[in-house]
């Protein structure tokens, strides 16, 4: 898009030092590019290394299928299943909140709003993404816990649904931004073609644009899911953290992230409990890594589809 440089002065001024400097800068940028991959690999190795003792002594299958989480009893019981199920319950509720709202908002922003509304909405959504999770947690404690208790006439408002609603709200910006990108990437010709066939804007949106952007929207949902499952502070404050196998989303749940955050501070370094928390982290890492990988593959497919 930018116009090519008109002067040849830049080229003439290229001295040896400048070339050396360029080489250094290039090396640094190159390294920074690789850094993300190195850090990711290091995290994976670090988690595996530290969970080695847990897998060895507590047993991977025993941990993954156990339903009793009493890490400080002697001997400790390290059944992770309630934590995994707890995380999934909370995330499920979050998806139920963020997908309809997020996709609908993206459709409005991309297809129906004027330029001014679009710009304002986008900045507000970016601001939403910047609010720290502990602030959402505080609001949840003050407003949502009593509300959920009364609305569903429960004994306590600290439930999976409470945490899920807040996580859903926190994931909305992710879902909107990426869905909006996906809708935006749908070529204008498709819409024009649809309109030329006599379709209204609604018909065009639902029968042409949305299906065309479906893989991008799917990726948005996956990334929102990844955001929700990895969130810690808000769920720690809102879900009650009881390590039960929940029968419904109206019960208290303990999530993987909340468990790690709550227990890591006091464990004996290098002890079994310490190692088990790393194993929980490894399970969480594997899940989020998988989710992000799927989302990326789907996004890539969509990009290829509309590439000329």
């Amino acid at each position, binding site marked *: 898009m930018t116009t090519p440089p008109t002067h040849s002065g830049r080229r003439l001024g290229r001295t040896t030092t400048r070339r050396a400097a360029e080489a250094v800068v290039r090396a640094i940028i190159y390294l920074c590019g690789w850094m993300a991959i190195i850090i990711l690999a290091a*995290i994976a190795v670090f988690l595996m290394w530290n969970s080695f003792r847990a897998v060895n002594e507590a047993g991977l299958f025993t941990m993954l299928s156990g339903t009793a989480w009493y890490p400080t009893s002697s001997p400790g*019981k390290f059944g992770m299943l309630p934590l995994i199920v707890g995380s999934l319950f909370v995330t499920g509720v979050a998806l139920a909140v963020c997908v309809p709202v997020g996709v609908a908002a993206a459709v409005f922003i991309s297809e129906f709003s004027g330029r001014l509304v679009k710009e304002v909405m986008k900045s507000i959504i970016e601001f939403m993404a910047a609010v*720290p999770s502990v602030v959402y947690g505080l609001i949840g404690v003050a407003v949502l816990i009593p509300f959920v208790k009364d609305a569903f006439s429960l004994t306590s*408002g600290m439930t999976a649904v409470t945490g899920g609603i807040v996580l859903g709200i926190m994931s909305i910006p992710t879902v909107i931004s990426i869905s909006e990108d996906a809708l935006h990437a749908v070529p204008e010709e498709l819409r024009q073609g649809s309109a030329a066939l006599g379709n209204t804007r609604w018909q065009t949106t639902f029968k042409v644009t949305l299906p065309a952007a479906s893989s991008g929207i799917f990726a948005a949902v996956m990334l929102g899911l990844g955001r929700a499952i990895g969130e810690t502070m808000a769920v720690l404050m809102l879900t*009650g953290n009881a*390590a*039960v196998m929940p029968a419904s989303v109206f019960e208290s749940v303990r999530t993987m992230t909340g468990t790690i*955050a709550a227990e890591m501070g006091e464990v004996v370094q290098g002890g079994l409990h310490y190692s088990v928390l790393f194993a929980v*982290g490894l399970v969480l890492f594997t899940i989020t890594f998988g989710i992000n990988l799927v989302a990326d593959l789907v996004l890539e497919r969509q990009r290829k589809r509309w590439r000329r």
Partner: protein
Amino acid sequence: MNLKKFVAPGLAVLLLMSTVAFAGCAAEEPAAETPVETPAEEPAAELEGTIDVQGSDTMLNIGTAWSEAFMDENPMVEVSIQGGGSGTGIAALLNGTVDFAHSSRDIKDEELAAGEEKGMDIVEHKVAIDGIAVIVNPANGVEALTMEQLGAIYRGEVTNWKDVGGVDKPIVLLSRDSSSGTYEFFKEAVVGDDAEYAAAAKLLPSTQAIVDEVVANDAGIGYIGLGYLTEDVKVVAIDGVKASVPAAADGSYPISRYLYMYSDGEPAGIMAAYLEWILGAEGQQLVVDEGFVPLP
């Protein structure tokens, strides 16, 4: 030592979720900054040496608070605090690897005997009192519970208030998280060593969260350190005694205990100075700050 203790979990948490790590750093900074302004003028600055302390995890936080404040006042002194449990600490004292053992229980006779065999003279120092109040919503009609009833409630055997003299309402069980020393003590004193907390117990990340939920929920029951009691909640009498600082101090309240430090022989030099400082105004103020009961 202390730095290492903080950095390692900090790093791990940072890798997993930066949010919490940032909160942790933010909380750490002011504590480290404020005392820096006071030291130097203290005449005790000539104190020099190392004190190694190990033991009770309940006392890990108060021990760390004591050591950090003491080291700020005496820059030449290094106090290292390790957890691992009361038994571990006493074993380390008997092995001669530490100077003080933190213990949240009395020393056992066999441990004393083992010390005598090695020609040691184990001396007990009471340094603070740990007491736990059981709280309910002010609207709750239950005024008193026995230890048995309380244990049954927390083991999940009694799940409705009507079974302990209240209205027909399911009990909402609130507990501290398992990383808390209060969780451990309450388990030992109330739930029972061989039993487990009911799985349905909500494990809340802070004492304040328990207070908030009890205030908001008329079916809730929770336990908090005596130091955290407020007017907004109702204290339930246990075995006929209402939790209070005097009742915890004279031992009549059942869910209370002394916190001890044990040493080999009467402490001398910097060890004596450290112990004296802990028993003094500043040390006992930290006891209050950490949610324990100061010595009477």
